[in-house]
């Protein structure tokens, strides 16, 4: 996946699908996921296969996740806050 260059940014804890991961202050949610070895953010509506961030600058919309209860947030644009709760986008049973 990705590894971090040396950083002095303070550690921040966020929860991804209920599991705590350590991020750094200043990370976008997508960067925090990638640095934690998580390469996916949603399940494709039709195929059901996992998708990860592609462009990381807000265009591809592959990284839309729920953040603190708010759906449809760009993981690549939102910066982490301590205690933030991130829920990745799951495919519904009916394929929507």
């Amino acid at each position, binding site marked *: *996946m*990705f*590894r*971090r*260059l*040396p*950083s*002095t*940014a303070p550690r921040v804890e966020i929860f991804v699908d209920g599991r705590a991961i350590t991020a*750094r202050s*200043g*990370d*976008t949610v*997508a*960067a925090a996921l*990638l*640095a934690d070895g998580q*390469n*996916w953010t949603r399940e*494709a*509506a*039709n*195929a059901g*296969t*996992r*998708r*990860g*961030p*592609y*462009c*990381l*600058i*807000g*265009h*591809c*919309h*592959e990284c*839309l996740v729920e953040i603190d209860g*708010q*759906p*449809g*947030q*760009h993981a690549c*644009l*939102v*910066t982490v806050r301590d205690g933030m709760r991130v829920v990745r986008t799951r495919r519904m049973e009916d394929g929507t």
Partner: protein
Amino acid sequence: MNRTCSLAVIGAGPAGMAAARAARDAGADVTVIDDNAAAGGQAYRDLQANAASRPGAMTVLGDDYGQGRALLERFQSCGATIMTGAGVWSVEPGGTVHVVDHAGVGQVQARRVIIAAGAMERPVPIPGWTLPGVITLGAAQTVLKSPGLVPDGRTVIAGCGPLLYLAAMQLLDAGADIAAILDTTRPGHRRAALAHLPGTLLNAAPLRKGLKWRRALKRSGVPFIPDAYGIRAHGTEALETVVYGTGGQHQTVAADTLLLHAGIVPSHHLAALAGCRLQWDGMQAAWHTVADDWGATTVDTIGVAGDCAAIGGAELAVQSGRLAGLDAAYRLGFLDRAARDRAGSSVLRMIRRQRPLRRFLDSYFRPPDEFLMPPDDDTIVCRCEDVTAGAVRQAAALGAPGPNQTKAFTRAGMGPCQGRMCAATVAHLIAEVQNRPVSGIDPLRARPPLKPLTVGQMAASAE
């Protein structure tokens, strides 16, 4: 967050910062809106944070990056209101800019709007490009700038463009394990570009820089495969291998990360939404926003600046931003026409001098046809709705005249990205099937909201 102002500038990258400052200096009150956490755009992403606390990053990212500091400082002290972390989901021709941030929705009402939304990387729809582990080269550069992430494990870079050599060098310097660079620059395109070479000699520094990066890459010992073709990504849950052709042979290389690149294209969606006319640029193989030298579009109240109008790179974006800012000040009554022309004349000359170089680069690094029109029918074209090239070809064969019609047939372009990833590919496929030029195909219409909103937010914005 509702406010009114003379000028709203969308985007705080090189063009938006320069536009805001030029209009402020003439006395206009300016509000700048950007969806990133800090100003700088992609070119100078998180520059100030890096300069303050990560000297190692500054070394890796190089001098051109560091040079954005003066621009940022002048922007921040110019007196414009700066809204960061705020996305724009619609722009109306009357000057209403609809904004959404973590606190909710709001509106900025301006007498004039400059859209400086920058560029995005051209999507590279190869087989397997939807697998986790396949991202754009620019995406890797983005997280290298901030917060300082480097691909871990075997990394393959594939595609073409001047950015490819620069980003590859930066990643190498940052310690990435680059297993191969698959350069898809086509010999025919290189030859065709020679016609544009004489004009570039007036402005040869960028060319020398590019050649230097390319030589350094070749000396680095990284396997460098020229004239690569037939790039495919394979894997079950995520990327495992990259297959490519070279000299009539197919090769397979194990990879954890594949970084794709085929140049950058204008992010024209907000301008299109506001009603500005788009035009197909055959050299860049992309739509650009129709605008005059000052960035004035076909909509009276709306200007464009920088890469979102037509690709020119960060330095040119600053110049075009300055012109759009001066023009806004003139149209808003803060400058008379003569003062605008005086202030802009040297900038216009500078921009004209740079045009031949752009033509040369567009021609030299033109993406191979396999990136523009995926030959394999199974390749996914629309990532949001999982629509394949074959499905689009079928709709085209039934007579769909453009992406607006194939959208109804296939759902391509109907998802949250609103065709940002697929519209140009769909247009190319229609042109291929119907044997006509892409320039005659209408672009996909953009619809509000351009960013996902909840129904509650929609209702709140209508109140």
